[in-house]
């Protein structure tokens, strides 16, 4: 079943969202993540929050 292959739990989505900020992730993981984010509000929030933390740290000293 394609969905079994492509579905990931939030634990994995969280780690991939973080890893994506630090390096390129595998194409298959990009798809898994994209589909997960479409249906998961909590992980979507987490995504926006870690992006914001990055912006905040880069603003230090400005």
């Amino acid at each position: 079943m394609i969905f079994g292959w492509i579905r990931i739990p939030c634990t994995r989505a969280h780690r991939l969202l973080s890893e994506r900020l630090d390096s390129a992730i595998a194409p298959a993981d990009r798809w898994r993540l994209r589909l997960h984010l479409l249906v998961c509000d909590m992980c979507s929030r987490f995504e926006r929050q870690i992006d914001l933390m990055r912006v905040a740290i880069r603003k230090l000293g400005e």
Partner: protein
Amino acid sequence: MEPATLEGSLAALRPTLLAIARMQLRNEAWAEDVVSETLVAALEGARTFAGQSQLKTWVIGILKHKIIDQFRRARREVSTEAQMEAAQVETFDELFAADGHRLPGPLDWGDPEESLSRTQFFDVLQMCMDKLPAGLARIFMMREWLEYETSEICKELGITSTNCFVMLFRARMRLRECLEMNWFASAVKS
């Protein structure tokens, strides 16, 4: 720029520089040293600073270089601490259900731009960074503030890239939690 004016402006920048250096280095003596070196370099280089950029931006650029130098000087100590931190296991199990679903947790942070425009937000950020173990704080700041590539961090600290990703993840999880509790969830933002 008149020297007297420059000295005054640099003195006014000192507390900011020191706060950033402490966050990044997590060592009081190192922070004091790099800030002194930065101020001396700024005074000596004043002639090359022709006002193309803001003084603060220019000085922070010098500070970044001095911090990188300090990491090189203290390489052994910094990498030992990073390796000890890399050996820690943190699962964040309490945030996820047994099937891996995220338990309701992350709050809606509203308009983040608004937070970034407030000085107090940066005080909370600093407090939350202080709560991270030194090894996590350093690697996180290396990545996010010094903007090192992950591969460079691994090389500098002598840790594997997997360890590196895991440590950055742990730092983000803890920092997120702390910011949410102490800033985004609190009504006392004014």
